[in-house]
């Protein structure tokens, strides 16, 4: 007879092929679990899954929306991979995104009546600076005082959100806005150009693809990418090699912050057009799932961002057509993460049932 509970035993070698299949397996398991949930809620699972995953992207507009949502997710996720590859757990991208929106959006508000070609580049630059500075705070705390970056970066998210809150109800409030908590709209030249007439997909997508390409180059071809990797795998080997780990921590946080900041600015200068309270439906947190689902690889992150973006769209449609709370989108994101971590464990460990005598 075997014991009821298995014990976890390390595998002598993990399969490279399975490593590649983990994201796919996680998604399949998520869909299966999702249909079970739909059945329990009393819906036809085929119809529900269709409403959730197919109907949102069955029109040109829907596909454009998919890219609108995937853009910030992919951009933040590729930024996060600089940190995660280095074994730094920056989970404050949401705060860095918000700070980017504040810095870049601030420029937009300052020049709200200016129409000049330099306005948008300046806003993007300011957004990157804002995000990077916010990212450097946990970097300084970590390197100077050895604080845990998970806590500090997370807490700084709420600080950033409150600063935004204060600005849009206080000094930056739209004087013609009937006291609504929002800023003036940016001028036309402070907006991300649209890629196609009538669709919301914007220039931020191009910026994102460009930065993903640059990151691929850095990760695979440069000594800086190599240093990040070594420092992540083995801090001792990095010290032996003479890589300056403090510098690496600073760079990883600054780059991640800058990317999140640009993503925030792209949101407010793209689809939104002004500053207000809820500029991001947790893109900064969801991007963590995207980064891991994409195995921290640029190509993987592109696909993962599309999959996760679909859960946002599906949640909206499910609310509309099935009267399910849109939080079901988060459930799907949670399921993906759950299965991803579970599969990850099973790649490196196996379960064995001990024989009972």
């Amino acid at each position, binding site marked *: 007879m075997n014991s009821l509970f298995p014990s976890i035993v390390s595998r002598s070698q993990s399969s490279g092929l399975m490593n590649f299949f983990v994201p796919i397996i996680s998604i399949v398991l998520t869909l299966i679990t999702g249909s079970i949930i739909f059945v329990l809620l009393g819906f036809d699972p085929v119809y529900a899954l269709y409403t959730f995953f197919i109907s949102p992207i069955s029109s040109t507009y829907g596909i454009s929306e998919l890219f609108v949502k995937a853009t910030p997710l992919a951009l933040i996720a590729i930024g996060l991979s600089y940190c995660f590859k280095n074994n730094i757990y920056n989970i404050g991208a949401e705060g860095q995104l918000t700070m980017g929106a504040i810095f870049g959006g601030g420029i937009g508000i300052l020049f709200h009546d200016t129409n000049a070609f330099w306005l948008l580049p300046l806003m993007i630059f300011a957004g990157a600076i804002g995000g990077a500075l916010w990212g450097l705070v946990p970097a300084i705390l970590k390197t100077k005082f050895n604080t845990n970056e998970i806590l500090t970066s997370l807490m700084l998210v709420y600080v950033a959100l409150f600063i935004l809150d204060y600005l849009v109800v206080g000094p930056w409030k739209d004087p013609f806005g009937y006291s609504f908590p929002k800023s003036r709209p940016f001028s036309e030249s402070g907006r991300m150009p649209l890629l196609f007439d009538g669709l919301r997909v914007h220039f931020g997508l191009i910026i994102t693809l460009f930065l993903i390409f640059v990151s691929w180059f850095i990760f695979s071809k440069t000594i800086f990418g190599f240093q990040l990797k070594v420092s992540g*795998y083995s801090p*001792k080997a990095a010290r032996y*090699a003479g890589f300056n780990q403090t510098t690496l921590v600073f760079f990883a946080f600054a780059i991640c912050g800058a990317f999140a900041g640009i993503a925030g600015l792209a949101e407010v200068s793209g689809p939104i057009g002004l500053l207000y309270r809820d500029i991001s439906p947790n893109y900064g947190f969801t991007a963590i799932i995207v980064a891991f689902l994409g195995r921290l690889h640029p190509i993987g992150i592109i696909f993962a961002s599309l999959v996760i973006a679909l859960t946002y769209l599906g949640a909206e449609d499910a609310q509309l057509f099935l009267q399910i709370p849109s939080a079901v989108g988060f459930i799907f994101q949670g399921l993906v993460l759950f299965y991803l971590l579970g599969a990850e464990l099973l790649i490196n460990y196996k379960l064995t049932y001990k024989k009972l005598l």
Partner: protein
Amino acid sequence: MSDTILNIENITKSFPRVIANKKVTFDIKKNAVHAILGENGAGKSTLVKILYGLLEPDEGNIKLNNKDFKVNSPAEARKQGIGMVFQHFSLFDSLSVKENLILGIDEKMSYSDLENKLENISSRYNLPLDLDAPITALSAGEKQRVEIVRILLQDPQILIMDEPTSVLTPQEVESLFVTLNALVKEGRTILYITHKLEEVISICDTVTIMRSGEIIDTSSTANQTAKTLATKMLGQKLDDLKTNYEHIKDEVNFEVKNISCDFNDPFLTDLKNISFQVRVGEIYGIAGVAGNGQSELMDILTGENINIKSGSITFDNKKIEKYGPQKRRDLSISFVPENRLGHSAVPELSLSENILLSQFPKNNFIKNGIILKNNVDDFANNVINEFKVITPGNDTKASSLSGGNLQKYVIGREISSKPKILIISHPTWGIDAGAEHSIRESLIKLSQNGTSIIVISQDLDELIEITHKISVIYDGNLSKPFKTSEIEIEKLGLLMGGKNE
């Protein structure tokens, strides 16, 4: 065949691209010490892991007491009467001896039973233990005793010992041999894995020699000499290495002066006023039992730790004690720390990528921050060929190489950049005689070409074989240097045990 305890028949085990065991067949007699001798990559570890339930063979049978023997885990192997003492101890440093022993027991046992049993084992097998001492306070020999007692609590018929003397002082080795003899007298069988030829002759009854996954010979150790064993193991004759002082210049190019360093950490040894000088082309050995400040000194010599309390390091008339590792490499100082996996090499990375951990100014691996992959690959291939590293290619992960091969690769990487001084810790730790010989040979050749070398090692034979001068480190103090050709082993042994004169 009643005196045979274990029949190993046609065991074959292959890994991707490598056959680790090829139709391995031999018998182990009851009541004896049976040695398995072989180079790294010869398949010893694979075979032992199969016996201990850590690996499953592709083919073949094992019979224990003429009954089929098949286990899927070490716990099952222990239940069937096979115990193993690993080369690297698996003890909890912060717990006491007693707590560690309790954790190692598979079945339920009352506290008083345990104490009785322990007392019995301690006295019967010459294994004195202070049950309440924390593991950190123990020497390597004492830790090994804890491991042995832990296994003996399970009352095994067969005890597998993996390189048991590699961390012991000569005195501790003696006492281990007394224990092993007592165990055999009682009817137990010991499977003794080693690369030390002398030990095979002095303590083992039978020896099985393995080469490239195959059994070369199983025979009695009577009438064997270290030379005959080594020849069988390597398949070729070894040249005798000779110490040669002629090429050493009078000029000192590396000088450590009065280095002191306090750590305020019970796990680390403070360094006290360490001074020594190395001349051009000289091999300077630092002997000592593990845990007497070697790794702390190594960190200071490599620049991984630059927070010293006082003292100076001078190289080529430059004060370098505040230089980090890269700045030292820029001066053509090269180093190989003790630990291969995760320190001098990253196991998850390919051999090619591992080249980049140690860059010297003339290497030309990087241009404007971009890795010149062709140059790195060429360098890696060169190291692989020149130092006879056995690997399918430079894209193989470092983790898949055997210890000896990876060490040859790491040392080859450093030597290939023609450093002015090489600082190396435990160059042949845990590797086979073949790799050991080729590494020692290349170190000697390097010194003859004018490179100074500092070798930190616990292996006295090694230091005596290759160095020109030896000092002993004990509790963070370094003794004065002795000329290797005039030194007496007993004197070194005493210094290593902390007895000065």
